[in-house]
């Protein structure tokens, strides 16, 4: 194995071209408004709902998801306590996960969700529905600005842009492939 490592590295060194410069990437400007974020997210199948404040989170969720029985969240007491040790069987029964997002990206509707906010790494995709709670002042214009603000990527983290979807059958868009069937971003 290490023989292959040495062979690959030696071949890469021998065959690479003369060194070329690494460009600096500007941050670029752009529209960082919540309105832009909301309209782009709507275009990819997600929804923005405004909260009057974090205090109205639970009643808003009850309105949006009246049928959700098994809920998990670090923001309020859900019906299912979830942590990194929660079994697959219990995770598979979650109807709604409500997780805090860290950064919103106006150009593509994505929200950065670090591992620390997920309760369990699988929760954001195994839940039937996902709601992300985001401070509207944390919306940036582009991915450059989002990456510039990330303190790091931790052990695991992801940008989530809309609900899980596929167009693998005749290019027909179907929302709800394997991950969450719907995505709501609750802005406050």
């Amino acid at each position, binding site marked *: *194995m290490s023989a*292959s*490592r040495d*062979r*690959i*590295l030696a*071949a*890469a*060194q021998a*065959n*690479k*071209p003369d060194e*070329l410069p*690494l*460009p600096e*990437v500007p941050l*670029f400007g752009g529209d960082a408004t919540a309105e832009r974020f909301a309209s*782009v997210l709507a*275009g*990819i199948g997600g929804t923005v709902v405004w909260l009057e404040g974090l205090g109205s989170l639970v009643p808003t969720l009850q309105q949006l998801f009246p049928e959700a029985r098994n809920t998990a969240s670090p923001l309020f007491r859900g019906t299912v306590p979830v942590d*990194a040790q929660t079994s697959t*069987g219990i995770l*598979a029964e979650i109807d709604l996960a409500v997780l805090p997002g860290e950064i919103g*990206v106006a*150009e*593509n*509707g994505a929200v950065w969700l670090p591992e620390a906010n997920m309760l*369990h*790494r*699988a929760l954001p*995709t195994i839940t039937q529905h996902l709601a992300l709670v985001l401070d509207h002042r944390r919306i940036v214009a582009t*991915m*450059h*600005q989002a*990456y*510039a603000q990330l303190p*790091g*990527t*931790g*052990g*695991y*983290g*992801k*940008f*989530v*842009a809309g609900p*899980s*979807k*596929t*167009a*693998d*059958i*005749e*290019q*027909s868009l179907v929302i*709800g*492939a*394997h*991950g*969450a069937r719907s995505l709501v971003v609750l802005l406050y």
Partner: protein
Amino acid sequence: MNHAIRADKFLLDADRTTWHDETLWFVREKRDKAVYGVPEFQELRELASQIKNHTLSRLDLYLQEFEAAAQANGVHVHWAADAAEHNAIILDIIRQQGATRVVKSKSMLTEECHLNPYLIQHGIEVVDTDLGERIIQFRDEAPSHIVLPAIHLKKEDVGDTFHTHLGTTKGESDPQRLTEAARQHLRAKFLAGQVAISGVNFAIAETGGVVVCTNEGNADLGVNLAQVHIAAMGIEKIIPRLTDLGVFTRLLARSATGQPVTTYTSHFTKPAPGKEMHIVIVDNGRTQQLGRPDFRASLKCIRCGACMNTCPVYRRSGGHSYDFTVPGPIGAILSPNIDMKKHASLPFASTLCGSCTDVCPVKIDIHTQLYKWRQVLGEANEIPASKKWGMKFMGRVLASTRVYGLGGQFARRALRLLPHGLTHATSFNAWAVARELPAPPKQSFREWYAKQPQPAPQPQPKLPA
């Protein structure tokens, strides 16, 4: 069998060919719409190109930086010189777990290495979890597109396949209901998966992490439920810095499908506590391509598929006609590096129109490389005798004014006198397979021009002294 013969098979169904052509062109139009919405898009292409060029020029150093960072994150790093070693490493990791159930998300590299048949042959259940890949896995077919693996199929085909394998109602062809059936079927596989294999879109030297982009969420679901994650990557997936992803995530999905970004852009950096993460770094001909100055830029590819969607030949010949893991224009410049003899016809499966180069988000000079591969293949005597001698003959004719003029005279007369059955004999005139020859003109342009009255001399403008 060459590309043209395999394309003939695809073209037998004219309606389907038209549908394939129009559907992929529609994806190209969606790409254009997304691209025009980003004022700095061309600047981003240039940045992406420069970042990739720089990375290739320090590839050995970045690979070592990546390895050290990944190991510091508690990730096991493996190196595979070729497909056989890649497969053996992965089987070994699975066996060490005593595992038999593997869930896989999309990876063109594992397709290239023929990992699935290898694992299945060794008693491992391998389930492809991307919907398109699951469909073709049921049908025992290869993907026909790197982003849209089942684009060669119609919903009725998928309905038949799911009826056979998933027990959906016979005749059911509604994409929503078929997708729901696959969701239920694959959920069970995700929950039971012991080892998850994923591809890699980007590997960040600075952090040692890998990034996987999906719309379905299948990579996240598989990896985060299994005990072990194995990520397979070619050496060219490296980028230097986390912030470089700002450039590549803005280009990838817009170029691929016209989306502003994939639904999930997932950063896997450390294994979850109590779990394992492995990264297999694969060469399989890539360092050889790096050593070919004319062709090394092909290693910049980020696998968006834009060159396929725009290619007039790909759209009308289908992915399977290329008989290579990566079809389309980019496949036609990658494949001769792997096996020049087998793939000798692919660089000719192009009109050299250059549309692939125009849409490439990392500015690979695809059509120039197609042209250069033709030269290499010609010198290596890897083109058919009829093409070789035909080209040599035409080269002579077109290089001589006199021979060209005589040839034209002969052709104009012969086309008028010879019977249609002979001039349009498809055995030697491929043009006539689906077309009529134009009516021969009475005279050539040069003959006509010579008969025109000489134009009166134009007054010369006075030049300042």
